[in-house]
């Protein structure tokens, strides 16, 4: 008994600090934009389409797997805003798909890992997905990536965004159940 109590106390303490870390991770407002890392593998653009004026230079692939974005509610919310601002809706609708493939289902042609989604955004994909490399800061791409993953319930429930102040397509991201991601073909 006398041995149990301190143990229990320590356990509670550990649990609490874990909660704290989780909460801080989730709630942090990341303002300072991390500079784009210049020493990363380059890759060709796989789409001719580009916003505004086209660039000819190759795009830079992600060094890591976008740590820290999937767990941060603010980044995901920013991603959701950019998704609207940069008119991803135009093709993907509210994730339901249209000209472009749906993002709310479990079918990922180019992979559902953050790094893979990052590549899709910067390189572009054949048949319509523009190449945003160089037109977006790396930070913004990661935010978009995190949001895109939330659309198919890949993120923690306490991070995924709630309903938007706009016409609603389907239930808010926070209400979506995770669908096992497997490469499908559409």
């Amino acid at each position, binding site marked *: 008994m006398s041995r149990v109590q301190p143990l229990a106390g320590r356990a509670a303490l550990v649990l609490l600090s874990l909660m704290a870390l989780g*909460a801080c991770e989730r709630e942090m407002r990341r*303002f300072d934009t991390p500079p784009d890392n210049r020493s990363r593998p380059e890759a060709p653009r796989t789409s001719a389409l580009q916003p505004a004026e086209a660039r000819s230079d190759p795009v830079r692939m992600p060094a890591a797997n976008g740590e820290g974005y999937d767990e941060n509610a603010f980044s995901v919310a920013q991603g959701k805003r950019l998704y609207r601002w940069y008119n991803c809706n135009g093709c993907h609708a509210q994730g339901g798909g249209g000209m472009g493939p749906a993002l709310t289902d479990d079918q990922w042609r180019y992979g559902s890992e953050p790094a893979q989604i990052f590549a899709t955004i910067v390189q572009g994909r054949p048949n319509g997905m523009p190449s945003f490399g160089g037109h977006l800061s790396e930070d913004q791409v990661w935010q978009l990536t995190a949001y895109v993953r939330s659309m198919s319930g890949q993120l923690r429930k306490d991070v995924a965004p709630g309903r938007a*102040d706009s016409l609603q397509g389907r239930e808010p991201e926070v209400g979506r159940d995770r669908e096992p991601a497997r490469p499908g073909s559409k």
Partner: protein
Amino acid sequence: MNAPDHAPRSRLKDGPGGGSREAAALDDTWRDPPGLLGWLAAVNHKSIARRFIVTTFAFFVAGGILALIMRLQLARPNAHIVGPDLYNQLFTMHGSTMMFLFAVPVMQAVAVYLVPLMLGTRSVAFPRLNAFAYWIFLFGGLMLYAAFAFNAGPDAGWFSYVPLAGPDYSPGKRVDFWAQMITFTELSALLEAIVIITTVFKLRAPGMTLNRIPLFVWAMMVTAFMVLFAMPSVMLASTMLIMDRLVGTHFYNPAEGGDVVLWQHLFWFFGHPEVYLIFLPGLGFLSAIIPTFAKRPIYGYTALVLALIATAFLAFGLWVHHMFAANLPELGKSFFTAASMLIAIPSAVQIFCWIATLGSGRLDFRTPLLFVLGFFFILVLGGMTGIMLASVPLDLQVHDTYFVVAHLHYVLIGGAVFPLFGAFYYWFPKFTGRLMSERLGRWNFWLFFIGFNAAFFPMHLLGFQGMPRRVYTYQAGLGWDGMNLIATIGAFVIALSVLLFIVNALRSLRRGVEAGDNPWGAGTLEWATASPPPPCNFYAIPVVHGREPLWVQPRVKSDGPEEGGQPAFTHVSGLAADARELLATTVLDARPDLRLNFPDPTIWPLVSAIAVTVLFIGSIFTPWAVVWGSIPIAIALTAWFWPRRPETLLHLSLERRP
């Protein structure tokens, strides 16, 4: 029904005063059980109220510290002590703390201590509910500060306007914690309101007719009624908010037929009465302190009571004056202008009555009276700026500027905090048995008074010069630097004076002068018993013959029945001394009506509060918590309600049908 024979017969009856065998029995009966478990199971209104007061005061200090950090940031232009993210959390926490965790609950806490003493009874009605309300309040406040510590402190303002506080613009859980804190604190406040109302209506000493109720009790009763009708509004609003955020409802989503101004209507329908929930108890304190130090009964008792009631009614008719800048129909606005200005009249009536009382009395300048005089200066000034804000054109210029910050602090600190500090000095001897130091008290008062005006008067001018509220910084060269610096200095002077108060309280607790039953020579019943009062408050329930029972001598019996139909009895006898038995009287003229059995201390209110806390916090993370979380609550409440056999037998032995 008749008592079974094996029921223990209760023999000891109260009546004989202190020192007697019955008195000792009463102490044992009403004392909280010993040990930690006993402490957690306590239901005595004085123990609960003491914890409640200390807790709310701790929140007051916490909120004050947050304010100091804000003032540091604003002392100079373009300061970088805190960034916008933290600053927004700071002012949101400051506002929420002061409004929800300090101002309203502290008044109820003091009432829970004093009302039974002033009414001459031994407990509040529903003592277990009272304990439950305290625990709920404590857990709600702790949750909010835990969230703040984990960087999940709310950051959308204490008023949480949507859409800024909505799911689209406040990601994460910050605002959810705020909304649940509302649920906690308002639940607590509503329960306390029920406790106070029932106590006042049913547990008054014989002879305390409605027109003999002490004015502080009147103020608290009016406040309690306002709580009943004001708080549901904000609970509804915050529930809608959290549902918008968590389950995707569209109450506040214009794109789906919702409306963001709906929030403002619901919030201010609560939010404006809220101001008077804070203000009316302050007036009650004054009406208790002034007669004592003027050595005469208050002037215009009836007028004061009617003024309280009038204020309560008008308070529900002017919420829109917080929304003049949101485009609303013009015609309505002038109505709300009129209502907002007319509410000044009841306040004026009270102020003039108090001045009359002071003018025709014999004054005794002690610290409590000093704080009362401070009230006159600050509150009246705040009232004047309030009248300016009630006028639509003026409001449209100064609305949401530092002018409003100045105004609301003049009203709330002048109208509530100064009287509250006066009340602390006034009743501290009753709470603890010792007087507070007068010398420190005067220092405390003057530092507070000067610091306050230094901190908040310049804000009026800042508002005129175009400085908006809720800004985390301001640019140099706008002409705001100097006055902001003064305000910051003033804020620290206030902090110093509050520190002095704490020192004074702690020192007096040990080394203060022994107070005795009635150190001020006051007239109300709480001074009729020992300081601090025994667990049962009164060894013999007094019989009341006037508004200041300790000042009026009962007439001799030969005069026959006097007003209120009470013959000149001095005290009550015949209540069980070895059971928690209380006298209930009739609602209007307080004739003895029933002998009621009161519940024993129990741990279940605490357990229920924990269960409720689990549900509330759980529901921030998953809606299903509402389902599985309700099961432990049901169990706990049932265990709370379920009668124990020995208790029942005791009650049966005392039972007597109407």
